[in-house]
Each structure stands twice: as structure tokens, then as C-alpha cells.
């Protein structure tokens, strides 16, 4: 019967291809959109994961994501340093400041100030210049990938990327580009300038609370979670690991922006279209073969055999369609990665895609089977 099922299925090439194409389209939409969603979601934590130097991030207890700009008092640094289990703690400033490029282009940039003495928190992957170049007078580092994009000197003739040696103004304070680094692409798009903590404070508007984060290294042998708990008992502060901070940021972005809803709608529509297209095609295929199923039933094929036939047909087109769809999604991911589109396909996405396609096929097969199983074999004599 498997042979009959397969020959009935692949014999009509057009319908077979329509079925496979419908399911492949559904699998492509579901896995590709989910992968892009996943890529963007994971990018929300890129900056945190690039800063691998510390065990804990200490911040205002109301801070809920990396761009929250809820600063803490500078006295917090000494209080954290006094907590049992802390090996070292350094301050970090992060804020959005007005910036003007050499050609006069004005923009808003993220200025990150790292500890003057140790430069802990400075970019790890320098592509031009050295990390200690940050100690030079008025020095800032730029992201090499943003130099020709967010930091493009559009008004220059001809336009050119910002480069090492250029002079820029941050909040009307002169700064010199002393190096360029490479970072993992981020969800947030504003250009980033790294400088020292004291220089960042000098550039930023005067405020009482000047420290955004305190980066903490836990003493060997101490429990990170216990140290975090002790820091968290200081009023107004909380301490989280990098992974927790990244998860907080992702959670905030997904909840506060339309990204989750939009991707959810796209993925849902992809699934729905897949169900409708493949369901309708499979249903039409079954209707077209109703006379043949009746003939098989008249000749002694029981309902179980018919269920197996339809199940095999649905599983076959589902498997092929899924393979093509996921393969297509992986290929588009490869192409997307070349042009900077976020694309991340962890193993869970193909599994979710498989479940979605399985549901498509099961739904389509059930709709079709209802008609086939109710089919009266006596119709074989109706011409």
C-alpha cells in the first residue's frame, strides 16, 4: 500500500510539486523569520557579551536594559568594593551625548567611559591602534564597522568614513579618534565612542549621579550569586551576571518594542498560509483521487490502510517540503549574514519548524481523511 500511496502522490507531478512548494514555503517563512527574530533578539545582548572582563554588572536597581541610563552615585563604587567576595570593582559610564563629526554632521552617540587606571571594559578586539592609546589626551575609539556607516562623513567631498586621527566634538568637547575596534553587531544602532571614565564625565552634562555601571570581578572561590546577593542588599543597587543582564535587555526590547508582535504575526501568518496552501492542495488532491480511493475500498482496502496511505503521503510531502524550506532558510541566512541582517538559527528553530510543518500536515491529512473515510465505496458504480 505504501507503493500505491507514493505512486498516487508523485504521479501527478504538478499537484505533487504544489504540495511540496506550499509546505516548503511555510517551513521557509517560519524558520527564516524565527531565525531573523532570534538574530535580532540575541543582538540586544551583544555589547554585554563583548565585555567579558567582569563577573557582575552593578547598576541602579531600576535599570532594566543596557540603554536605560539610570545612573548611580559615585559612592556606590566604594560600597561595592567593600562587599565581601569582591576582588575588584571599576566604574563605567554610558550615556547618549551630542556629537559633531569633522564635516559638521551632527548625531547622537553612545559614549562609554572605562576605568582610567585599568582600562577594564575597553574594547578587546582592536583593529587599529592599541588599547592603551585611550590614555592619550582627548582619545576616543570608534567601532570600525560604524566608520563607514553611522560615522560616515556625508558632507565631505567626497564622503568618507571617520578614521583614526580625525577630530570630533562630543558635547562641544574636542576628541581625537585614536583607534578603531571590532565588535559583535548590536541591536541598538547609535554610534559608539569609547573613552576613559573621567574624560566621559568631562564631556557629559554635569549630574549628581555619574556612574552607570560598576564592573565587578568576584574573588576566586567566592560564589558569584552570593556576592550578587550581598551587593543587591545595598540600597538602590542590583548586581547581575552578563547573561542575566543580556536576558533583561532582550526581555525589555521584546516587551517594549513591536518586534516580538511583528515577527510573531509574520511567523503565524507563514504557518497559517502553509496550513491553508498545503491543506487546500492536499484536500484537492484527495478529492481528485476520491474515485480511486473508492475503488481501493471496494477492492478490499480497509480504513486503516487508507489512513496509512494518506499519512504516508502527508508525511512524505511534509518531509520534503520541510527539508527544502529549512535549507532555503539556511541559505538565505548565509546570504543575509553577508549584508549584515541578523540571522541566528539555533537548533530549537528547526525543531519548531518541524513541529509547525507536522501540524500543517496532520491538519491537512485530517481534513482530507474525513472525506475519504466517509466515502461510500458504492460510488464506484456511479460512473
Amino acid at each position, binding site marked *: *500500500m505504501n*507503493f*500505491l500511496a507514493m*505512486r*498516487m502522490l*508523485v*504521479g*501527478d507531478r504538478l499537484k505533487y510539486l504544489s504540495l511540496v512548494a506550499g509546505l516548503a514555503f511555510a517551513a521557509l517563512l517560519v524558520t527564516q523569520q524565527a531565525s531573523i527574530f532570534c538574530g535580532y533578539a540575541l543582538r540586544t545582548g551583544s555589547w554585554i557579551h563583548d565585555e567579558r572582563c567582569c563577573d557582575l554588572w552593578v547598576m541602579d536597581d531600576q535599570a532594566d536594559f543596557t540603554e536605560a541610563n539610570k545612573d548611580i552615585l559615585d559612592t556606590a563604587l566604594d560600597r561595592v568594593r567593600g562587599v565581601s567576595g569582591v576582588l575588584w570593582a571599576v566604574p563605567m559610564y554610558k550615556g547618549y551625548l551630542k556629537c559633531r563629526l569633522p564635516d559638521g554632521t551632527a548625531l547622537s552617540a553612545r559614549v562609554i567611559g572605562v576605568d582610567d587606571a585599568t582600562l577594564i571594559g575597553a574594547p578587546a578586539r582592536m583593529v587599529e591602534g592599541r588599547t592603551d592609546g585611550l590614555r592619550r589626551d582627548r582619545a576616543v575609539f570608534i567601532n570600525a564597522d560604524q566608520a563607514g556607516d553611522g560615522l560616515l562623513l556625508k558632507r565631505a567631498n567626497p564622503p568618507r568614513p571617520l578614521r583614526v586621527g580625525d577630530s570630533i566634538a562630543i558635547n562641544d568637547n574636542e576628541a581625537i579618534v585614536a583607534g578603531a575596534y571590532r565588535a559583535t553587531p548590536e541591536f541598538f544602532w547609535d554610534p559608539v565612542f569609547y573613552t576613559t571614565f573621567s574624560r566621559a564625565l568631562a564631556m557629559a552634562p554635569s549630574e549628581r549621579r555619574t556612574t552607570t555601571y560598576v564592573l565587578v570581578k568576584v574573588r576566586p572561590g567566592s560564589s558569584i550569586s552570593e556576592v550578587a546577593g550581598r551587593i543587591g542588599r545595598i540600597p538602590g543597587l542590583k548586581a547581575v551576571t552578563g547573561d542575566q543582564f543580556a536576558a533583561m535587555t532582550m526581555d525589555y526590547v521584546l516587551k517594549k518594542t513591536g518586534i516580538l508582535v511583528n515577527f510573531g504575526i509574520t511567523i503565524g501568518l507563514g504557518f497559517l498560509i502553509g496550513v491553508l496552501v498545503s491543506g487546500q492542495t492536499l484536500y484537492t488532491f484527495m478529492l481528485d483521487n476520491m*474515485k*480511486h480511493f473508492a*475503488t*481501493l*475500498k*471496494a*477492492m*478490499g*482496502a*480497509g*480504513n486503516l*490502510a487508507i489512513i496509512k496511505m494518506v499519512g504516508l503521503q502527508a508525511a512524505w510531502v511534509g518531509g520534503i517540503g520541510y527539508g527544502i524550506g529549512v535549507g532555503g532558510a539556511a541559505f538565505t541566512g548565509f546570504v543575509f549574514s553577508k549584508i549584515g541582517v541578523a540571522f541566528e538559527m539555533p537548533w530549537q528553530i528547526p525543531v519548531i519548524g518541524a513541529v509547525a510543518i507536522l501540524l500543517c500536515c496532520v491538519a491537512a491529512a485530517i481534513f482530507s481523511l474525513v472525506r475519504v473515510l466517509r466515502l*461510500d*465505496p*458504492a460510488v*464506484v*458504480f*456511479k*460512473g
Partner: protein
Amino acid sequence: MTSTIQEYQSVIPHPPELAVHCRGVTKSYGAGAAKVTALRGIDLDVRTGELLMLVGPSGCGKTTLISCIAGILDQDEGRCSVFGHDFKLMPQREKTRLRGRTVGFVFQAFNLLPTLSAAENVAVPLLIHQIPRAKAIAKAREILDRVGLGARHGAMPSELSGGQQQRVAIARALVHDPKIIVCDEPTSALDHETGHQIMEMLRSVAMRSGRSLVIVTHDARIFEFADRIAQMDDGTVQRVVDSAEELNN
């Protein structure tokens, strides 16, 4: 399952010389004002090894009767046993299984699966009964040889003429060696000469080893092939005659 069949055999009294034994068979479709009575107390016997034709005007109940005989419709009342088995009394699964083994079908529109070759179409009843594919195809080619289509075993139905397709359908009805073959207008889609050839083939090839044939037909040109002809009208068997001449009197 065998014991179940034997149980039915013991329940239904069935003269051994008869393939089909119907008494008081009635069948209606619909209900209330829309109720249509197709069979009104049919009494009919089909002898073992006999070719019986069911003739009569459209709507007289011929197709309903062979559907009851073949076990694909249940009569409302009366008894219709085929080699001792009344399909109506059987559970659905057993009925399907027994029908598959006992009855062969030849349809007016051939009902060949368009995506299967001639040999594969013929092999379908064997495949339904779990016979391995290679063995089923070999047997199918053997039967196709018998109906003169051995050389066209790989042809698709669309590549065959109407007469050839009907020969494939006959081979399919024979391949699992059923005890009875029911044919619904087997020649109506064919020209006279081809229809004649098909009937000759049914007589020569199908009616071996005591197999019975029940043929529903409008085609008076093939009456000569019948051992007996049952004339039906308005859901009843009017008379059963031995020849076309007798039918015309």
C-alpha cells in the same frame, strides 16, 4: 477471523450449487418524502460457474443489486449470501477483507489508477492483501499475458485504448482469483467490436474454475454471452430467462 467466517457460514443456509442466494432483498435511499425505493423484495440466485446478466431500464435497481451482492451496500431487509456469507451481518473490517478476497470488480469507466502502469494496476488487489510487490507484479504480468496485453505491461492507462484499458481492468478483477466477478456496464464505453472481444475474453478467461460473473448491462448486443438473463424493472426481478431470444418474446 477464519472462525468468524465459519460462524457466518453456519448461520446462513446456502445451497452449495449457488454462488449468490438473495431472498426478499429491499433497499431504499433517503427518508421521508425524499425516500426512493431501489429494490423491492428481490429474489435471485446466481449459480456457480454461471454468467448472469442483469438488464433493465435505467433506475430499475441493477446497480444497487450488484452493490448488495458485492458487499459494498447493505440491504435494508432480506438476505443476500455470497458463497454462504451475508456481508450485511459482518463487522465492517471483516466485510472489507472478505469482499477483497471473494469479489472481483469491472467498472464501466475502468477505474484504473492513472499514475500506475498496466501491470501495477493489475497488481493492486494483491498489494491490498499485502502480497510483496515483486511477486504481485509478476502475477499481474502473467494475467496480462492471458488477456493479450503482456507486451503492454509497462504502459500507463493514458497510453492504452478503451478496449485495452478494460482488458487491464478485467485482469485486475482476475488477479486475486476471486470466486465471483461483478461487472458494471463493461462494454458501454467501447465500440461494438471491442465490446464483443471483451465479452469473449470474459467468457474464456474469467469463467474458469467455476467462477461466476454478474454483469449489469444495457447493451443488448452482448446478451448472447449470458447463461441466464435477469430482467429487472422498478426494483424487482420481472423474470429470469435463458437466452436473448426468450427475453425478446
